[in-house]
């Protein structure tokens, strides 16, 4: 199933760097998250509009050189799923119906 991804509204997340980690306070949920690389970098690469995985991968590559192979794509997809489970990113199916 093809998914599109996008960031949460910037007004909703408050970030605070803490040494090599990033703290995120989610104003909409009241939850605090402590994220280590590559999660904050990945979050940074998500846009305000819906985008597919290849676009996000390309942006990641241009900033951090993750590599374009299948393994990289799979890893990024897994990390994105984690971010969505934490509620820090959103996704929907590419045919524009609502997904989890």
């Amino acid at each position, binding site marked *: 199933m093809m998914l599109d991804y996008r960031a949460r509204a910037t007004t909703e997340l408050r970030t605070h760097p803490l040494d090599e980690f990033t703290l995120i306070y989610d*104003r*909409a*949920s*009241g*939850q605090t998250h402590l994220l280590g690389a590559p999660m904050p970098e990945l979050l940074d690469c998500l846009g305000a509009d819906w985008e597919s995985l290849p676009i996000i991968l390309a942006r990641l590559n241009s900033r951090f050189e993750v590599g374009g192979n299948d393994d990289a794509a799979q890893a990024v997809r897994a990390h994105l799923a984690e971010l969505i*489970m934490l*509620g820090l990113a959103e996704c929907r199916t590419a045919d524009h119906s*609502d997904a*989890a």
Partner: protein
Amino acid sequence: MSVAIQQMVALLRDPACAPAVSDTDWTDILTAARAETLLATLGHRLREQSLPLGVSRVLNDAMARAKQGHIVARWEMRCAARALAGLGIPVVLMKGSAYLALDHSAALGRQIGDLDIMVPRESLDAVEAALLGAGWEWVKDDPYDQAYYRQWMHELPPLIHTERDRMIDVHHTILPLTARPRPDAGGMLGRALPVADGLMVFDPLDRLIHCAAHLFADGDLAGGLRNLWDFHCLMCDGVDEAALLARAEAQGLRSATARCIRLSTHIYGKQSARLTLTDRLFLRRLTARNGWGQETRPFTRLVFYIRSHWLRMPPLMLMRHLWIKWRKAKA
């Protein structure tokens, strides 16, 4: 009524009484209000009044706590909506969550605990599977409790989300199947109105009837002053009383609804209401709280505690249920 409760309802009814309250009285009023989970609501009612500093501090804390609770409650609604979106069924918010989703005055200062939703009875299995798949798990693992809930209650056994540590109660009707009135759940679902995130709420009349059912036909009335305040706020929407009672009649809940109308008018309304003898007994139970926050009137409370079980379960079932619970406790 204790002086503290009397003064508390007077302030809710007419905030302009505030300047007349003495320091000693404030102490007892705030304590009683907190015990009745009406403290933050009182704070909202008194927003325009000039209050002693110590009183404002306590009220502001309560309102801030309620506000943070609303943030968490809204998020919980969003998460449940997401988990159930794919099922294509009506998911109806109940009680505090519904008032919050509607931005209704009943939500001001209201503490919102578990998320209560109602779904069609035939969708229960699908709803259960979707929630378990999205990170919720059972609170009561015991097979007896599980069986009891499924067979007799009006809800699935309670579920809790592992990471967020919040509970969800999934109902399929508004009263236990073992209780005497048999409301028309299908009708209520059919009349439900959409709110945000693909969720729904009961229509204005069903909302009131559910409030009355919850208060009088189901519980032992603990926290009744809070529920009656909800009812009062909902009535202030300009509801047609005759239409309300007609709908309640069709649900088998006319007597509970009429009692709610009389008592909420008597306690919070601007005009007086004619109370029956039974109403006065209910009133006694509802106002059994003093300025130290203690529950008073132990005999009245015991009568209503027994009554609440009586209403939920026919006597033989109650005996069996208590017997099993006693045996388990002894083991």
